[in-house]
Structures are given as C-alpha cells and as structure tokens.
C-alpha cells in the first residue's frame, strides 16, 4: 500500500519538476492582490506579450516585504505589486527596488493631491485608490441606522458596536487612512476622532480584507475600507454601499521592479503593459473595479464610477504628506494598537458609559454632570505623546533599534497601554458618576 503511494508520488514529482524546465520568459510577481485581480491581468498580459508567462506569488503586503528582504541575497522575484505606497517606500529604503523609466508617458503626475509615481522612479502608480466608509444596506435597514458620510459620523452613539476597521499595523491601506485623518484633522483632534470611532468598533481585524468580508456577510454593519473592496463587492451582487468622506485622499496602488530581477526584460514588459491602455482597461473588470491612472479610461467606466481626475470632491482632498507619515509610521501604528486595538473592551465600556450619561443629560441638564462627562471625553481623547514626540528620533529609535540606547519598544508599549487603561477606567467612572447625578 505504502509502496504504491510512494511510487505514485515519485511519478507525480517527476511531472512537477519538468514544469521548471520549460519557461524562459517567466515573470515572477509577488503581490497582495487576490486571484480575482491577478487572473485577468495574467491572461491579458500573456496574450499581449507572447512568450512571457506571469507567475503570481500571493503574499500579504507585509509578509511580501519581509519575504523580499529575506531572499535578497539570491533574489528570484521580478516584481512587487501591491496597494500601500509605504510598503514600496520601505522596500526602496532597503534598496530592494530597481530604477526604471516606463515607456508609457503622458499619464498624470498626481491623483488627487498624491504624486502618482515615486519621484526617483523606483515604483509607479497603476491605479488609484481612495479610502472611505462601506456599509451593508440590509444591516443598516434591519438596525434602523442612518447612512454615514463623514468620519465624525462614525463617532456617533447610534453606530456603537457597528463599525469594523483593520489594524493599521497590519494593513498598509488602513494605515494610510489613519494617517490621512491625522493629517487632515491634526494630531490631537485626529486622535480624538479615531478614538471616538474606536469606542464604536465591533472588531479590529488583522487583515485588510477582513473588514469588507465582515461587511459583505453582514457580521458587521459599517467598515472603513479602500474603495475597490466595496466596488468589487457591489459588482459581485453584495448589498453594500460606499462613500468617500470629505477628509480623505486618493493614493496610487503601485508596482515596482525588484532589484537584481532574474527576468529584467519581463519585469519591464509587465510594467509597461500595466500602464498601457490595454492594461488599464482590465482595472474596470467587475471583480477588480479600481480607478485607472489613465484618465482616458473613465469614458468606458460603469455608471456612477468615481473619477478622481474630474470629480470635484477629489480635487478638494487634502494633501497627503508622505514624509510626515514615514517618520511616525511605527509610532502611529503602535499607538493605535496599544490605545485602541488591545484596549477595545475598556474603551468601548467607557464610551458606552459616556453615551448613557449624555443621553440622560439631553433629557435633563445637570451642570456638574455635564462637566464630568466632558472630563471623561477629555480623558479618552488624551494622548500619551505629542505629534512632535511621535516623530522624534528618540522614540523612533525605540522601534527601529538605533545606535544610541533608548527606551525599548516594549517599555514604551507598556507605558502607553497603562496610560490608556488608567484613562479609560477613570473616564468610565466619571461617566457613571455623571449618570448617577442626573438620575
């Protein structure tokens, strides 16, 4: 019995190993995009460029970056293809990308207010993505919830326990969303909004796709997502809707050639294809639904499809400063984790208590109670570090391991976590006291 299995396996093994020998024109791409995105591109690219085959390796953005770093000594990957620009920035910083000048010219320099391409030519935007709010229509209807339009809507009591977000430390796109809010509203006000949303969160997922997945299935009502998740879900028939809040930004999804690519020619061919009209057209397929970077394509776009180059709302979007973002990436992510993700229950508890007190106050105002509630809100939105501190070299070194001995990351995390625990507990106590004063 075992012998037969072994023999069968050897035969199959031989069959597999022959696959390696065939293709000279294999272009290997590491991507975070799902099969629904990559399959149409693969088919179209191979049709346009006979002789080349696209070999897709799926990895999450973060593990893809880690992977390229681990294998750099003997790199076998030609392209890195993902959404979050900061991942490309990180790769560029580690000298893991190669410079290239694409053949396709005449594409816009900026989408919204974000530069489409890396100024030094290490990576290129091929599609635009905006961040916004997605919801499940059935869910909102069943729970009698209004449709949200702005980030601040999500801090309202009626959305308590109905919102989902991906952890910014896990999702590059969510990180950009968070950073957009912080840059748009300022450090302190921005965190106030984020913690307000935090108090309403039902879940903080570990994968970007976890949020649209939960909204699609109706486990959660509202999610903070990148636009194409909503568009492709709509195309798939799910009862979901999407809105861009006024404070948001459109950023490009990118592709870059990996340094020392084994198939440089193939890599270049794919970048050129992706930016060409043929490649850009694929973006409009129902299962993909991303905003093309070539304005001409919008002529063929389906009804209601947003156009970041024409729609006025995109023009008024804030300027995203990627330098500011870069300096404090780790700090912002860790703050979000320590103050919101890992403190979700205390934060929600305090927020709920405040809602209860405010509801009572609305019916009957008691000055002392009002003061207490305001204090409670102040405690929740208070931050353990200022914007300047967050970007300071001392704190940054704790995360990256600088030459100088600084506080260790673990120590900072513990400080911030205990800051949050204490504040949320106090806020809850104050809110409960306020409620008892009103009753």
């Amino acid at each position, binding site marked *: 019995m075992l012998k037969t299995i072994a023999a069968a396996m050897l035969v199959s093994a031989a069959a597999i190993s022959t696959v390696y020998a065939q293709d000279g024109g294999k272009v290997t791409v590491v991507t975070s*995009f799902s099969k629904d995105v990559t399959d149409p591109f693969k088919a179209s690219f191979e049709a346009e460029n006979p002789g080349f085959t696209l070999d897709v390796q799926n990895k999450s953005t973060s593990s893809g970056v880690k992977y390229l770093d681990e294998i750099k000594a*003997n790199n076998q990957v030609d392209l890195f293809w993902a959404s979050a620009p900061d*991942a490309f920035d990180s790769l560029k910083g580690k000298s893991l990308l190669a410079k290239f000048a694409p053949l396709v010219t005449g594409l816009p320099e900026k989408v919204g207010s974000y530069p489409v391409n890396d100024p030094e030519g290490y990576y290129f935007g091929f599609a635009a993505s905006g961040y916004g709010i997605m919801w499940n229509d059935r869910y909102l209807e069943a729970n009698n919830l209004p449709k949200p339009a702005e980030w601040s809507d999500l801090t309202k009591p009626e959305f308590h326990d109905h919102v989902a977000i991906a952890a910014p430390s896990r999702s590059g796109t969510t990180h950009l969303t968070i950073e957009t809010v912080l840059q748009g509203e300022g450090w302190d006000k921005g965190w106030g909004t984020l913690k307000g949303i935090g108090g309403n969160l039902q879940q903080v997922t570990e994968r970007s796709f976890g949020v649209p997945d939960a909204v699609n299935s*109706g486990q959660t009502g509202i999610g903070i997502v990148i636009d194409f998740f909503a568009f492709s879900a709509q195309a798939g028939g799910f009862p979901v809707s999407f809105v861009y809040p006024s404070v948001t930004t459109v950023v490009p999804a990118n592709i870059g050639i990996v340094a020392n690519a084994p198939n440089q020619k193939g890599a270049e061919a794919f970048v050129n294809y992706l930016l060409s009209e043929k490649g850009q057209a694929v973006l409009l397929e129902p299962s993909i639904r991303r905003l093309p970077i070539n304005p001409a394509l919008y002529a063929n776009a389906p009804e209601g499809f947003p156009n970041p180059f024409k729609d006025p709302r995109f023009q008024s979007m804030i300027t995203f400063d990627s330098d500011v973002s870069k300096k404090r990436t780790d700090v912002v992510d860790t703050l979000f984790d320590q103050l919101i993700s890992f403190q979700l229950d205390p934060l929600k508890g305090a927020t709920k208590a405040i809602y209860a007190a405010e509801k009572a106050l609305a019916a009957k105002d008691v000055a002392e109670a009002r003061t207490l509630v305001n204090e409670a809100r102040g405690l929740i939105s208070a931050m353990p570090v200022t914007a300047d501190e967050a970007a300071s070299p001392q704190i940054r070194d704790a995360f990256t391991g600088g030459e100088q001995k600084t506080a*260790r990351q673990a120590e900072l995390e513990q400080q911030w976590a205990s800051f949050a625990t204490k504040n949320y507990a106090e806020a809850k106590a104050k809110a409960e006291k306020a409620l008892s004063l009103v009753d």
Partner: protein
Amino acid sequence: MASVASIPFRRVTAKPGQIAAVALIGLFLAIFLIVPAGTVIYTAFTEKGTGALTFVNFLDFFRTDLFRRSFFNSVYVAGMSVVWATLIALPLAVLTTRFDFRGSMVIQTLGFVPLIMPPFVGAVAMQLLFGRNGTVNLMLYDWFGVRIPFMEGLNGVIFVQSLHYFPFILINLSTSLRNIDRSMEEAAQNLGSSGFRLFRRIVFPLSMPGYLAGASLVFVKVFDDLATPLLLNVKDMLAPQAYLRVTSVGLTDPMGYVISVILIIVSVFAMWLSAVAMRGKDYSTVQRGGGGLMRRNLSRGESIVAYGVVGFILLLVLSPHIGLLLLSFATVWSYSPLPDDFTMVHYARVFDESSIYIKNTLIYASLAGLIDVVIGGAIAYLLLRTKVVGRRWLDWAATSALAIPGVVLGIGYLRTFYGVTLPDGTPLATLWVMVVLALAIRRLPYALRACYAALQQVSESLEEAAENLGATKQRTIRRIVLPLMTGGLLAGFVTSFSTAAVELSATLMLIQSNSDAPIAYGIYVFMQSPAGRGPGAALGVIAVIMVALCTLLSHYVIERRQKAIGSAK
C-alpha cells in the same frame, strides 16, 4: 586479585545501529527544525539595534500588562477548550466503544473530519452560521429577540477550538477504552459497581492514559494556534501576539520571538506534564487479552437519548463543514439566515485549477506523512525499545515542533536555505521539497504520538521470540514490529496527512509559484476578494472531501487489518 582478573567486566554491548539512528534523526531535526527555528528565535535574546545578547526582553515580557494578560488568556482558553472538547468527545467515545451502537464506524470517521478545516473558509462559514448576524442568531433574534455571542471574545475562541480539536481526545480516548481488559470491568461489577459509578471509578481511570494524551494535544494545539483567535479578532492571546509582531512591516521587534520562545517552553512543559502524569499508568498495555470492553445493548429509551445526543453533537461539530458547503453553492449570502440563491458556478470556476492543487496537496501531504511515520516510528522505537543516549532529546525536539509557529518556521527556512543553491543557481528554499519538509516537521509530533502508542501495544516478548529464533534486530523490526504496528503507523500517517493537507501558515512563506501550490494556498488566494468567497469555499469542500476520503480509506484498511490479525489474545 586473580579471581577478579578471571571475571572480566563486560560492557553492555554498544549498538552502532542505534547510535547511527539517533545521529541521523538528530541531524534531520537539527537541519530542518532547530537551526531554522533557531535563526529566527535567536532574535529574542538580542538587544534591538546593537544585537548584543540579553535577557531583558524576557523581563519586558513579564513587565508588560498586555503580555501577562495574553498569557493568562491563552492558558484559560486552552484549559477551557480541553474541558469543552472533553464534553463533546466523551459521549461519542463511550457510546461507540461501550455500547452496541449502530453507526459507530461512521461516528469515528466523521468525528475526525473537524480536524480537516481548511484555513479562512472554515472561519467564514462559522461566522455565517454562528456569528453575531449568522444564521442561528438571526433566527434567534427573529423569534426570541435575543442573540447568543457564540463567536465573540475568548468564549468564541473556546467554542471554535473545542469543535475543531476535540477529535484528538475522541481518537485517543476511544483507543484507550477499547484496550481495557474486560475482566477489569467484570471484577468491578462483581464487587457491586455498575452504571455511572462503574464508569467513573473503573472505566474512566483506566482510559486515563489515552485521555491525557488527547487532552494534552488539545491544550498545546489551542495554546499555540493563532489562526482561530485572529479570525475572531481576538488579539490578547500569546500566539496571535507573536504572529502580529513577527509579521508586521518594518518592525524588528524582539518581543514576537520572545513570545515564540515562551510558547515553545509552555508547550513542551505541558507535554512533559502529561508524560509525568501518565508514568506508571499504562494500564492498557499491561492487560492484554479479554478483547476489550463488553458492549452493552441500549434500551429503547436510552437509544433515543443516545441517538439524540450523538446527532446533536455531530450537527454541531460538522456545522463548519455544513456552512462551507452552503457557502460553496451560494450566490450572495449577506445578513440572511440562508444564501439568497444557489449556483454551481463556483465549482466551475475552480474546476480547472483544482486539479493541480489537488495533485500538489496529495504529493506534499503524503510525502510529509510518510516522512513523519518513518521518523516518528524510529523515535518511538528508540524511546521504547532502547536505552541509547539522546533518545529523550529527540522526543523533546520533535515535540517542540508543535509549538513553533508556522510563520517562524517558514521564515527560518527562507533564512537557512535561501543562501544554499543548487548547481543551476536555484535556491534550495524555493524547491517544493522544502514545503514537504516544513509540513513534515510541523506534523511530526502527531505521528510520533501515534507511533509511540502503536509500539506500546506490541508486546516486547513478540520481538524477543523473533530474536530467540534467530532474527537480528533489523530483521525483527521488519518482520514483526512493522507488520504489527501497521495500524498505528497508518493512523499516524492519516493524522499527519490530513492535517498537513490543509496547513497554510508555514507553506505561505515557501510557496514559489501557483504550479507548486497546495490546495490551502489556493483557498487563501481566493479568499482575498468578495468574488473569491464562493470559489474558495468550493475548493475548501473539495479539500475536505479529498482528505475525508483518504481517511475513510485508511480506516477501512486498518479495520480489515485488525480483523485479519484478530484480537491478539
């Protein structure tokens, strides 16, 4: 002095074969487990930035509230999962072994199926059934205006984990129950014990070794599992913390590795504890013959209750698979008890690709299972039949693989083998063989337990008789030990095979192209987009059916073999 000289001291003859076996297995474990894991875990002992050796990271672990909380949560969840898994497994095991119960074979096979839970899709299916707005809660809310938080927080993790891992207890407990000498029970009845007291005082204590073996596996697996808590968005547990920290972009945070080290220590400690608890309690092997427990007939009333209980449990434990099946046929399934409509398109979508996935999965999983059975069998033999130095270390090393997170092993493989190239420049790490080895290492502990139990059941006098009749150690192993262990080896192979077939965490780092990918990877890739949910579920169903068929087949082979041998008197 002359008399001393005439009685020369004899050394216990050194057995070069055994030493070579220990060395070879040690080398294998070193190259494919200890070194790769070590290169990653080493970070735990270094200072960030300077890279100097330090233990301060471990102090930080215990100084951090989050980690302390995570630690206790993990212990709590693992412990409670054992309790619930026991409550699920106990009735099934008792009814199928102690009573004349039709469908015992079906239950024993179906009871194995929960272990075959493809990644992602299983959790999605569970959410659709038991989530806050899943089928059950939507109906409960409709009818009674209440929701039960099955899937929320630590309790959600306990719920899903007990449903997933109870087969470990079921399998081991059933084996133990079957091996109890009939006279043990008869003696108790003779002395006036019966019914539940008889079970509590005699039968259950006697089946303790099997139960403990299963329970410790459940504990360790739940303690080290990261996928379920993460998919339920529970982050304050150790394994998810380790994973989040190891895989986050740009972070060179040693704490993730510190947690990995602590996971390994706790897991090995738990296995050691169960080994200590079992010491001197191998009742089942002391008493052979008598042919197992008496099977009692159920009265009509009892039958109804028993079938009811079994039906309910089976419905519960198979619910992820039922959900998966529904999902694979669903068009849109959103905020409704059942899908809006049903369709076959998802199967059509995956039909072309699935053949390569299935082929790869079968190759990888069966090679991994084969490696596991060979190495697990060898370690079990060294442990039980020899006194060669280092055999315990092999055991601990192989067992520690239980606790090494798949990601850590995956990264370790890249680090260790990417620099090593074949003559044509292909890095060793990109060969699909590496995936097989990673799978084999990850599943080795299961196979080792199975082989150990199988060898324990083989009376040593059977081997001595062969040696006495002129068979060397090698010949004895080939002609006596291996044939008698076949059932156990096959059981070990099946466990390794079926769980490796749906494993993803270690392979995700190592898969180099779609043509090398196993089915779990295919599911993962599909499950990243809304439109991929259906096809992903379809692939998941295919995976479950494929593995279940292989399992059923081997059960059948084992059964036939057992019948051929007869209950060895």
